[in-house]
């Protein structure tokens, strides 16, 4: 067991890798609520994979569907059991992972055992799978009415057409219909394996008990993990417009980013780039708000998984086309002009504070740890101090030149 205490306050981490391959992270916190989480390296983008010498191509939305269905066990719905124990359970799926987690003030170890057991035990009845289809179709329709969501995926479809990364996490109504219990069982067997899962606990918890229990439950599980296909797709570019019943235009401009090692450090630097280039203190925002084109700084998202990544800038604007044009110019200028040392030092301070503040909360700390899968929060905090201006410039250069654009306008 590795205990990391020599790090900024609040980032202390206990890390242990089990013989079955599972990484266990414990984040001690003096809080009433304790959090337990299992992060599975299987997300919406992992639709093509090799498993036991066989190639599989699964329908879009499979990882998310599987997440929903895992809550249905042979003995009933998992949520009810957690509620009986005084806990609340939830899950989410993104492009590269599925995370199951619970929050509780009591019966932590019972809840923890329940979490590991249900994540490990698939049970997909025909009737339940069919019923879930209508629920998920409702979820897809709900997001259809969200202009920000539509703008983001519209831009992604321009940047990476026909790629899993540009598909909605939940899939679409046609792909959902192709999902069967067999599809779900295959994906579970292929990806829900000990070495493809990370266990994270945060709060006033006992590390020894967590490690022993995880070892006991996971050591008997299947150990072969599928190899998801690396998404080597050349980015494209283009612009699309969608009409919706809205009052103010939305936009999204998505750029490709080169994939690289040390994802944690790169994520920190991308956060600095996002703030320095498009944040409230940026020249871009100052100019755009002076012209009355935007009133809130755009939000910037970045993500990288299995060979593909993006850096997407989105928001609401009165003249979205003008704002997008300026985003493109700003990116070009940023890449040609280095950050000055005073701006860099201010961004470093901001990054340090924002990181430490965000992980003050057990749930956020656990979710952040799930994202930083290869490094503990303690190591991640130390990475911040190692960032140099040269690193900043290197990551800025990793943002590609092509751009996928989507504008949502009033119908």
């Amino acid at each position, binding site marked *: 067991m590795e205990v990391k205490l020599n790090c*900024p*306050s*609040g980032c202390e981490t206990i890390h242990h890798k089990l013989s079955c391959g599972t990484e266990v992270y414990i984040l001690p916190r*003096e809080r*009433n*609520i304790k959090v337990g989480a299992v992060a599975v390296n299987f997300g919406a983008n992992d639709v093509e994979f090799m498993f036991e010498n066989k190639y599989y191509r699964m329908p879009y939305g499979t990882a998310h569907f599987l997440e929903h269905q895992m809550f249905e066990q042979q003995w009933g*719905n998992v*949520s*009810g059991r957690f*509620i*009986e*124990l*005084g*806990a*609340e*359970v*939830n899950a989410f799926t993104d492009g590269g992972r599925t995370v199951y987690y619970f*929050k*509780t*003030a*009591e019966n932590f170890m019972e809840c923890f055992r329940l979490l590991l057991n249900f994540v490990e035990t698939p049970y997909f009845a025909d009737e339940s799978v069919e*019923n879930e289809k*209508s*629920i998920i179709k*409702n*979820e897809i*329709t*709900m997001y*259809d*009415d*969200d*202009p920000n969501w539509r703008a983001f995926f519209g831009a992604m479809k321009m940047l990476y057409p026909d790629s899993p990364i540009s598909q909605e996490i939940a899939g679409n109504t046609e792909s959902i219909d192709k999902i069967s219990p067999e599809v779900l069982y295959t994906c579970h067997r292929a990806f829900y394996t000990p070495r493809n899962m990370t266990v994270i606990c945060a709060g006033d918890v006992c590390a020894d008990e967590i490690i022993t229990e995880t070892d006991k439950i996971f050591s008997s599980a299947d150990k072969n993990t599928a190899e998801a296909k690396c998404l080597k797709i050349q980015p494209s570019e283009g612009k699309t417009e969608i009409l919706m*019943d*809205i*009052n*103010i235009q939305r936009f999204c401009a998505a750029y490709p980013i080169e994939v690289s090692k040390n994802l944690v450090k790169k994520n920190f630097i991308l956060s600095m780039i996002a*703030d320095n280039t498009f*944040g*409230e*203190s940026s020249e871009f*925002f*100052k100019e755009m*708000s002076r012209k*009355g084109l935007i*009133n*809130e700084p755009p939000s910037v998202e970045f993500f990288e998984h299995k060979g593909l990544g993006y850096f997407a800038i989105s928001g*609401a604007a009165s003249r979205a086309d003008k704002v997008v044009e300026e985003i493109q110019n700003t990116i070009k200028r940023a890449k040609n002009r280095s950050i000055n040392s005073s701006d860099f030092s*201010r*961004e470093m*301070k*901001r*990054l*340090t*504070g*924002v990181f*430490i*503040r965000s992980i*003050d*909360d057990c749930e956020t700390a656990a979710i952040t740890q799930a994202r930083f899968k290869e490094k503990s929060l303690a190591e991640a905090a130390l990475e911040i101090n190692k960032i140099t201006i040269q690193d900043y410039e290197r990551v800025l250069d990793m943002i590609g030149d092509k751009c996928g654009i989507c504008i949502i306008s009033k*119908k």
Partner: protein
Amino acid sequence: MITREYEKTYEITEISEAVRLHYFDEEKFNTNFISVIWTIPAEKKNVTKVSLLAECLRLGIDGNRHALEEKLSEMYGAVFDAVVLQKGGRQLLALNIECIKDSVAGEKVLKNAAGLINDIINSKIADNALTQAKRRLKTRLVTKNDLAAEYAIEKLIDITYPNDSFSVHCDGYIDDIDKIDTKELNELFNELKCSAHTDIFISGELTKEKAMSISKSLIGRRENIKKLPIDEINICFGCAATSEKRLISQSRLAVAYTSKLNPWGKDWCIGLVLREILCGAGSSVLYDSVRQEEGLCYYIGGRLMRFRMVYVIDAGVDSGNEDKTLKLIDEAINSCCIDEDKLDAAKKAVLKDLKATEDRRTGIINEKLNEMLLGITIEHQAEKDIQTITIKDVMSALKGLEKKGVFIVASDK
């Protein structure tokens, strides 16, 4: 156990007329927190001004958000915000600053944070700030209406409480924005600082003396202190029902059920337990009947609005399923059976939520504000009250529910 650990070090001190310092000596978080909150009645003629004032203050001194953001970054990414809140028929304007502790940063961040909030409180609203604030507020209000789910709930409150200050939109009205000038806004700001009920919350790695000194520096001359009028409830007669069509893929419905319970003591706990049974996270009566059994929706949720003790239930359903869903909600409520297991699970969930409140600064502050505005002066033993809740208590609360409003944003695609 609900520790109410914060109560052990919590002290409330009247530092000037109707100005209270709420001090918590706690070091479990990595940050220090200062919040200044002014409370006034929510009145249609004033709400937009207060909302605009918040927008101006958010921009920092002279409307220079750029300079403000640079300062906040230098303070290790401190967060400053000016927000408008609504609690029943009251409008609250809060200025908050949160920064990492000096011991974590290795430099004096708190001193700078206190200085910044002080400078902003003592500043005047400039024309440049108001111009930006007007644009920002207009965009925010328009953007809010683009989201059918939020819109449905706001309209539901409008039709259910048509003559109640609870239905006044505390984030303002677009039509009133352009009528407001800097003179009016500065007068309002001065009036708030001089005569509004003020609560200052300070917590973190600092002594009470230090907190006292910071809070005194934030307060100027006090005069003409206005007593907060009683927050009277004024609800519609019968059940108000309206629908609107919109070019959206999914219809959104919002339904209001009033309760006869009080917003304090054991009644409040019963209300929370009932909310959990009807529409709590995960498994609940409405989740099971509308989503799991009928597959009618992905989202169905509910909240209990404490200052009116009204349950607001909302869901997104396919076009054509609106009436069926409303009927199912009604049936689920009217035929709801509560057994010991259900009750026990709901009690546990409520206890967990109350404990979670103690893990968040904003949770603790919100609880203190609610208690003050509801006139609760005795310490509430919530855990004890929850433990004594019986099936009879909850069934009686359930029987007391009355449907008072339905608002549908119907899909017209």
